[in-house]
């Protein structure tokens, strides 16, 4: 199984993994940064360590040791509701395919992290805001089912605006489908880890993101069920900036750790090592 082109590509010159513009401004500290440097720094601001939203492909290339076997690429979006508003749904999809170089909002596959075999799913906000439609739901389900067969831990990086409007109830039902797959995976005694990145909200937050054994999050990631604006309209007052950030959720006891992107691979590797040692003993039939 050859390494996917995009992966070899990134290994060589990460900076070209994003559109051509040479400079970018840090939304947090305002610093103007050379894209090449930011990309080389895992899309973290070198001045204030703001974590930029990262593409799924860049993410995977920073996590996986060597090769990565992608699955579910044959599953592609349809247009079940024949949705047309200002633009046709199919047009929006085409635009995002172009923009993100992705066929849909999640990239799933198998590889190794720190020497441990894992099933890895990474959502990408750049494709329809990471919304979960039937394809995202199907690919994540396929990943979990294959991970159940292989008995390997599953790690999912979430980044999602919620369920995808343009696929209506079929999109909402993906919450049920992925939950069912998660439950089977977990009931078989496999380890499930999620990493919540900016943003993780709505239907994804209220399903696969919060059904895992260990929940990690990136610094300052916005995480919640209801959108900030909706809540502010409901309570008719502004919410503190901290509200719904990863740090806020850590304090409220919702998540296990906030992990800097530079520490992510090392942290996941340690968690995989704990699990590998324990699970192996369990399979050997001893406590």
């Amino acid at each position, binding site marked *: 199984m050859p390494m996917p082109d995009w992966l070899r590509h990134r290994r060589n010159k990460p900076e070209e993994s994003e559109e051509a513009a040479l400079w970018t401004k840090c939304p947090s500290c305002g610093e103007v940064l050379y894209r090449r440097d930011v990309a080389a720094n895992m899309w973290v601001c070198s001045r204030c360590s703001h974590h930029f939203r990262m593409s799924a492909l860049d993410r995977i290339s920073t996590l996986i040791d060597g090769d990565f076997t992608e699955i579910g690429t*044959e*599953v*592609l*979006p*349809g247009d*079940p*509701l024949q*949705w047309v*508003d*200002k633009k046709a749904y199919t047009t929006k999809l085409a635009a995002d395919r172009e923009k993100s170089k992705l066929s849909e909002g999640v990239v799933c596959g198998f590889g190794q992290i720190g020497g441990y075999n894992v099933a890895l799913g990474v959502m990408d906000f750049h494709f329809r805001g990471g919304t979960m439609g*039937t*394809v995202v*739901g*199907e690919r994540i*389900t*396929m990943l979990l089912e294959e991970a159940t067969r292989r008995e390997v831990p599953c790690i999912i990086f979430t980044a999602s605006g919620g*369920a*995808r*409007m343009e*696929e*209506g*109830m*079929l*999109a*909402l*039902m*993906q*919450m*049920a*489908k992925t*939950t*069912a*797959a*998660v*439950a*089977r995976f977990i*009931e078989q005694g496999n380890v499930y880890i999620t990493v919540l990145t900016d943003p993780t909200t*709505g*239907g994804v*937050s*209220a*399903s*696969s*993101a*919060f*059904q895992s054994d260990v929940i990690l999050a990136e610094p300052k990631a916005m*995480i*919640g*069920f*209801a959108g900030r604006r*909706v*809540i502010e309209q*409901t*309570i008719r007052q502004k*919410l503190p900036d901290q*509200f*719904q950030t990863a740090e806020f959720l850590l304090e*409220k*006891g*919702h998540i296990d750790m906030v992990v800097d992107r530079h520490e992510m691979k090392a942290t996941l590797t340690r968690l995989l090592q704990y699990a590998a040692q324990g699970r192996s003993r369990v399979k050997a039939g001893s406590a």
Partner: protein
Amino acid sequence: MNLIVEREKQLLELERRIEELREANTHQPIDMSPEIRAFEQKYREIQREIFGSMTPWEKVHMARHPNRPTSADYIAQLQAFDELHGDRTFRDDPAIVGGFATLGERAVMVIGEQRGRDTKENVRRNFGMPSPEGYRKVARLAHLAGRFGVPIVTFVDTKGADPSAASEEHAQSEAIAACLYEFTIVPVPIVATVIGEGGSGGALALSIADRIVMLEHSYYSVASPEGCAAILWSDASKADEAAAHLKLTAQDLQQFGIVDEVIPEPLGGAHRDAAGTIACVLNAIQTALGQLVAMPPDRLREARYLKYRRIGAWESERREAVRTGS
């Protein structure tokens, strides 16, 4: 302002008139029966005109009709109901009503989303929008049903999960996710009925089920029409348009294979004959349970898994069919 309530007004006016005429007719020489029949004719025409074929947006308003039967009205018709309370941690959420009950001869766990029948009750029940404590109660009761081995019957009727700061601070996402998880694995039959509003994840939390029943004029949507319009076009007033786009009617969802059965409502909506509608719904639930209870738990769970496993629509349809077949 509820569209349906507004339109009902002219009908009520007409009803009043007809009553007066009937009354008058009894003690006066000239027989006005023909005029009365004409009025009655007119009445039926208007009624058909208004309710004969409703747009998705009109159905949304019908689902929100203040007089529409709520979960409590259905539960009141069960032979016995022992309400259970609380999340064992923090609070008993009045937006969720649940407990053991007897439906026909059968012991069940009934769980419903409960809006208020008046403003006071609506405030107490948070307009039927459950908090995390409510969803934790749901998950607990579902698990308890599994422990007791009794089927689960749910009534879905919510605009959505409570969108407040407190609910976020108490992990609304985690609470809903836990509900979905529990409903996925619980080894007893689940029959869910959408009786009014089926608002997004807050409705899904009570409706992962082996059979899903919907009332003719209820709706079930990935997002509220208002929310959808706000998100897509940042203009909540386009809600009617969004409603049309979202394919949220019982009829649409039956076509998608998401809903198993649609229960017809009397002309004018469920509240025009609450008792009759409730009887039909309970009857449909009993029939569904009758089919499900015969299944061994493992087969039941397997069937539930495959039912949701199949939901999805994309280009490589055939591959999918093959995959789930295995």
